[in-house]
């Protein structure tokens, strides 16, 4: 499992008081883990700090609202990990 996933799983477990072993790469942050938008702000803050990035939450939300993306693309943790890796790579480019 990628270290990115491990990091965000630990952040979610700590921030939302969710047992770490119940969080998998296939977990959907909203539908499976029950994380609401306010708790996700805390998670986003922790992710931004941990990776030195700025998760584009507003852009993602807009894309979902417009039907251009599904929540799975951003909130299933393996996909969220991939998006974070992309943002980290873009930062270093």
């Amino acid at each position: 499992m990628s270290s990115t996933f491990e990091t965000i799983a630990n952040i979610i477990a700590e921030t939302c008081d969710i047992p770490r072993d119940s969080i998998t790469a296939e977990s959907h942050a909203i539908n499976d883990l029950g994380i609401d938008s306010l708790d996700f702000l805390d998670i986003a803050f922790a992710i931004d700090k941990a990776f030195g990035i700025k998760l584009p939450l507003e852009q993602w939300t807009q894309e979902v609202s417009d039907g251009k993306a599904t929540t799975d693309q951003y909130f299933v943790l393996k996909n969220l990990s991939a998006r974070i890796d992309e943002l980290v790579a873009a930062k270093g480019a």
Partner: protein
Amino acid sequence: MRLEYFQLIDRIVELNLADRKITCEATVPTASTIFEGHFPGYPLMPGVLLVEAMAQTSGWLVVAVNRFERMPFLASIKDAKLRTFVLPGQVLSVTSHLAHEGSGYAVLNARISFDGKAVADATLTLRVLDFPNAEMAEQMRKQADTIGLKIEARADG
């Protein structure tokens, strides 16, 4: 402070957009109906209003950073500490530092002091959204002028 209008901040003393910091002055009124209940015979500034003063100070900083394009709304309060009693007539210094500017939210560390001594502090998260309507945006600009958040301050940094 104009407690009856929920305006906790009197004026902006310093705005440093480069350092993402703001300092405001807030004078607790000597008389208010709030003190009739909080508490009879011993008027104290309610702690929740001290938190609101920190939120409004933080909000003005976010408004300035966003050059009046977006509006902050209080979303969460963490580690709020009310360290001492605040009495009618005291002139408070309220500061806030923008610790993180995320996508659609901001995290700020705010503090109140009186005579150089810590009164209260908290970490606040504000949601940063588009203004719900033009009237609110206009009213915020008017209030900004009242407390000394000048256009020059919005334009630099």
